[in-house]
């Protein structure tokens, strides 16, 4: 057997490796550093890793070579299994930024009176003496940091994956730590555990579909490599029913991850049950990573098969938006509402994804679908992580108070925090002068350019519905007259960590709303996916 020695482009993938190394180091720290010093070491280590990776990503971004046709920059490395191109680097960048935000939320200890939002001892049964002991002794799971780093590693690998196998592995690397993180809430542990169980079972189920899709597509193309699959699709070499079924199953797996209808069922439960810092991190990170992967898969591997998946995406996008928007209206819990709104956002993002066109069909300087989706992901991430950070602040005697009833009149009691939250909501609703508006504009534009006007119309209608439920929250916070009955939540003063996250979120949302130019240019500069 002839054996070609593999080569690995360490210079281009080192941020990825840094994340992995930091995760592993985190585990070692967990093993060898005394308990009382772990928190500090872990947070510093994780932060240092994220910053290092971010710096690396920026450096690499500056050095990517422009490929032959000028559409794409970057290279395919590690024996064809990773593609380090413009979109990858862009996605890495925003994933790392949001992970930093997530990390700050993870590290917040002031809200719970000196402990983190995670269970003191996950193994202790809820409501038992052991649990009380764990909490009086101030135990906490610092394992969440390595877990998070592993998840970030998976998130970075996911959009970079250039073959189906890497894609699958990345999918799992990103999912598995999140399953665990979801079940680690300090308060409402039953809820949290249940969320973890649901997330896990449904996630495993969908990855089963995904994997079978991988197998079928492999059966069709005889290769896992995107380029080879594309070649096979173009030449129509194999059994095309294998391809279609496989494509559908792959889509199921990815659409599950992004939370698109009809595979969105986990989203509200998990968003609600998971510890809020995790929710924020997950809502931003997973979606970014999964959309990156989705686009690369569909554009690069199945680009020639566009006519068979675009209609499917049309239907799914419309369905997702409708489901997300309509169900969000009837929610009475802030986290669930945000979850459904994130489903609706998935629909909007899909609207951008399906707006792909050949380079020749675009005029000079026109917004491309990649650019639009990348930008939308950026705005979405800032708004989501900021909004969930605000949710962590609003508390009553039982911890976080996420039910609507508790939020009544919050705007009068804490106008600043309520105002910031309202601002995030307005951004999500897509009101001009916020980032969300520009993002929406971009994805709708590309969809309309690609002729998907029914989807755009549906999206507009859903936006109207969406505005309603966002505004309802603002009404609830600011304009509900009369004294609320029952206990109401108040805003706990956070430490600098959460405060910084919220402020950065607000600032970014505002700046991206008023001056989106630089980021849009950056996204345009990222170019197309390398093939």
């Amino acid at each position, binding site marked *: 057997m002839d054996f070609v020695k593999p080569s690995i482009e360490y210079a281009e993938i080192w941020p990825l490796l840094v994340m992995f190394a930091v995760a*592993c180091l985190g585990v*070692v720290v967990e093993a060898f550093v005394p308990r009382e010093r772990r928190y500090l070491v872990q947070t510093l280590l994780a932060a240092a890793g994220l910053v290092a990776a971010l710096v690396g990503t920026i450096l690499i971004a500056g050095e990517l070579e422009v490929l032959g046709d000028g559409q794409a920059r970057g290279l395919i490395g590690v024996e064809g299994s990773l593609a380090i191109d413009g979109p990858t680097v862009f996605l890495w960048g925003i994933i790392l930024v949001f992970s930093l935000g997530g990390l700050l939320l993870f590290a917040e200890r002031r809200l719970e009176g000196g402990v983190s939002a995670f269970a003191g001892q996950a193994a202790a049964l809820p409501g038992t003496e052991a649990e009380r002991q764990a909490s009086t002794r101030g135990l906490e799971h610092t394992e969440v940091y390595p877990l998070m780093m592993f998840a970030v590693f998976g998130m970075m690998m996911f959009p970079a994956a250039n073959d189906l196998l890497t894609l699958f592995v990345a999918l799992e690397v990103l999912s598995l730590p999140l399953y665990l993180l979801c079940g680690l809430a300090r308060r409402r542990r039953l809820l949290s555990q249940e969320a973890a169980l649901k997330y896990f079972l449904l996630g495993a189920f969908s990855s089963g579909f995904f994997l079978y899709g991988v197998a079928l597509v492999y059966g069709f193309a005889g290769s896992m490599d995107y380029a080879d699959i594309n070649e096979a699709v173009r030449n129509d070499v194999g059994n095309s029913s294998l391809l279609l079924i496989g494509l559908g199953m792959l889509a199921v797996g990815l659409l599950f991850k992004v939370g698109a209808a009809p595979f969105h069922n986990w989203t509200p439960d998990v968003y609600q049950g998971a510890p809020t810092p995790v929710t924020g991190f997950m809502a931003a990170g997973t979606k970014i990573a999964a959309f990156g992967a989705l686009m690369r898969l569909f554009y690069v591997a199945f680009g020639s098969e566009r006519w068979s998946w675009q209609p499917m995406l049309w239907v799914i996008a419309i369905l997702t938006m409708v489901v997300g928007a309509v169900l969000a209206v009837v929610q009475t819990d802030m986290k669930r509402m945000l979850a459904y709104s994130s489903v609706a956002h998935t629909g909007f993002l899909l609207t951008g994804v399906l707006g792909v066109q050949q380079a020749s069909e675009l005029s000079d300087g026109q917004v491309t679908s990649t650019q639009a989706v990348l930008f939308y992901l950026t705005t979405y991430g800032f708004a989501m992580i900021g909004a969930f950070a605000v949710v962590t602040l609003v508390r009553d005697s039982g911890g976080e108070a996420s039910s609507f009833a508790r939020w009544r009149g919050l705007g009068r009691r804490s106008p600043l925090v309520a105002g910031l939250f309202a601002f995030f909501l307005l951004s999500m609703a897509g009101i001009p002068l916020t980032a969300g508006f520009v993002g929406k504009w971009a994805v709708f534009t590309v969809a309309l350019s690609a002729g998907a006007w029914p989807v755009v119309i549906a999206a507009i209608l859903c936006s109207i519905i969406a505005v309603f439920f966002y505004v309802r929250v603002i009404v609830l916070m600011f304009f509900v007259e009369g004294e609320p009955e029952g206990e109401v939540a108040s805003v706990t003063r956070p430490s600098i960590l959460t405060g910084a996250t919220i402020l950065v979120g607000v600032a970014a949302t505002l700046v991206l709303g008023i001056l989106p130019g630089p980021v849009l240019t950056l996204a345009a500069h990222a170019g197309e996916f390398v093939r």
Partner: protein
Amino acid sequence: MELYTPVLVLALIAAAFAVGSVVMSAFVGPSRYNRARLDSYECGIEPTPQPVGGGRFPVKYYITAMLFIVFDIEIIFLYPWAVQFDALKFFGLVEMVIFIATVFVAYAYVWRRGGLEWD
């Protein structure tokens, strides 16, 4: 496929023997009913009632099982690597050292946190 046919033959022979033994033991031996004999053996005392579903195991066993899975998987990767090592040479060495080190990280964690302690 011919490589596996003999295995099947041997398995069939063994299975025939084993099943035959089980069946035979039901017929050959004597059968004298005795209520106490059909109870679970607990050194002569009344057997403790068993919860439905076969009772619960200590969590330790799960941990062992999980650890086993981790290492078994590691072995799965080590075998092909070992067989092809001559072709992989130094590259293979480096990659595998990284791989083993990674597993070792988890291993050290489990060890330090008391996952390998048995009472």
